[in-house]
């Protein structure tokens, strides 16, 4: 089905793409079927080999594998390793794949407690939640809960045209200021905007909801200064830890003793 197309005299091939769900809500994959205005153009870039939100066809000859979700069972580990062998470019799609995501809250409790609480009579096989880069090499990360379709479109266009794939390096504050929002710290809240990678167009903070960092850390964040800010304003350090832990995206900076 891969047909040759040209783009300004440069031939290019549609991206042979497959998408797989692991421990997740499948919201990120569903997000890729949104944005109807450009959906036909977006699909025009792709040769969909395996993507259950888009097609019932199943083929194993893909180059790009989108992975949604974190890893929380042994069979998922095996499936992921198999995909890695086939894929030339393995993409962590969404916050769960990139950082573990909300699912990581599970890791605060012993596995046995969880099973007894949630599936009392059953013997469920389950593991602590891991991000996919704990298990395989990830070539490209597209963070977000859910991912931003505009950004995915932009990245797919870059892949199709062979140009450099980039994410904003600056934090959410830039996009938040461009919307003329009142800083949530001024409203007495802890917001992870100054730590979090932009690209969401400050969607949460524009609705006066503090950023919980679904897109993970911006490039070279200043956690020391951020902690100072929270302390100086007399805000709750427990609240801070809770927010930092929400998507497990700030694990390397988290205070594990708190």
């Amino acid at each position, binding site marked *: 089905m891969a047909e040759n*197309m040209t*783009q*300004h*005299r440069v031939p290019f091939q549609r991206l042979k793409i497959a998408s797989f769900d692991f421990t997740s809500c499948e919201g990120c994959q569903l997000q890729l079927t949104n944005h109807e205005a*450009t959906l036909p*153009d*977006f699909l*025009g*870039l792709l040769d969909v080999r395996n993507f259950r939100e888009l097609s019932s066809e199943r083929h194993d000859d893909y180059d790009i594998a989108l992975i949604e979700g974190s890893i929380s069972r042994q069979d998922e580990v095996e499936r992921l390793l198999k995909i890695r062998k086939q894929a030339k470019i393995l993409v962590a799609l969404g916050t769960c794949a990139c950082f573990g995501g909300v699912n990581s809250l599970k890791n605060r409790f012993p596995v046995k407690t969880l099973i007894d609480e949630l599936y009392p009579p059953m013997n469920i096989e389950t593991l602590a939640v891991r991000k996919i880069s704990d298990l395989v090499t990830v070539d490209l990360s597209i963070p977000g809960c859910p991912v931003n379709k505009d950004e995915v*479109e*932009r990245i*797919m*266009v870059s892949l*199709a*045209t062979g140009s450099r794939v980039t994410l904003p*390096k*600056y*934090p959410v*504050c*830039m996009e938040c*200021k*461009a919307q*003329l929002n*009142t*800083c949530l*710290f*001024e*409203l*007495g809240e802890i917001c992870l*905007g*100054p730590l979090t990678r932009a690209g969401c167009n400050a969607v949460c903070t524009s609705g006066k909801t503090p950023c919980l960092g679904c897109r993970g850390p*911006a*490039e*070279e*964040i*200043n956690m*020391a*200064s*951020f902690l*100072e*800010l929270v302390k*100086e304003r007399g805000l709750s350090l427990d609240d801070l830890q809770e927010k930092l832990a929400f998507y497990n995206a700030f694990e390397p900076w988290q205070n594990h003793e708190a």
Partner: protein
Amino acid sequence: MIYKVISKKEFTGFIDALVRSNSSFAPRQVDRDHHGNPVYQFQQVQSVDDIAFDYSATASSAKHFFLPFREELSRFLFHGNDWEQQITYEANPVVLIGLRACDISALNILDDVLLNGHFPSPYYLARRKNTFVIGMDHLPLADCFCKSMNHHTVTTGFNLFCSDIGDHYYLSINSSKAFNFLREFETRDPNFDDNCMLVERRKLIQNGFQTEIDVTALPTILDIEFDSPVWEKWGDKCLNCGTCAMVCPSCYCYSLTESFTPNLKAASREKELYSCNLVDFAVVAGGHNFRPKKGDRLKYRYYHQHRGFAENASQQICVGCNRCGRACLAGINPKDVINDLRMEKESCVTCVSSSPRKI
């Protein structure tokens, strides 16, 4: 300049008529902070009742009406083996009400950089020419330092400037458009008392400043203090978030990106306002970062703001509104940084020999 006096009641009618027939923006209260203080921004208004004439300062400046945070500069269309570039400099007429003297000074500085330099910006020109600017004076806030920068009064760069003299506004009319608009409304020539009241009002403003920054010879001091530890001290606090540049009325640095549309039949060149404090501000092709250190990036912001670059005749571009200082979550503000630099030099204890001798 033509001077007129208008009663506040008549003025309200004038602004209302203007607002109702034009796309207008003015200070509005958008929030109350956790101390209970109102937060203002320049927002669209439909009638004079929407306007907070008694506002203190807007959290963000009016810069984005002239330099949008994000703007498409051109579009490229590909057909067959050919392509064309589409550029438009369209700007719808806008009425902007309530700018402070410092905000208008910032526009004058932007004019110097973006219109009077070697490469005038047609994008900026279109917006600047199509914006009707009404300035209003105010009593300085505790942290305003525009007087130190000599921007607490302004004589050009606006269509109309209103000074509050009690029951009336003393109007400085700086364009024929403003003069013609006002014809429909009842104004009179200022009399002796009006002039006295204007002088009194100016004195009150002049004497109301609580924050002063000694900026004498600041460009030289900045040159001398290029390697000062002060930069690292303040840089260590910096969150690299770019907020200071976004709210600033005169920061104009930007980044450019070019991207294809998903159908690959067109492409777009977009400009976004950027900040010298962002980690990749000085990253060049190939990946080298000329300013990997926070302190260096902060230093260059102060250099641009307070020492100026050749493109604007090395004049300081900071107007002293302190929006950056108010907005900075890390507590970095021009007053403390500059005072720190000065202290650095003034606490020098090295003995200077009386005259050099050739050995």
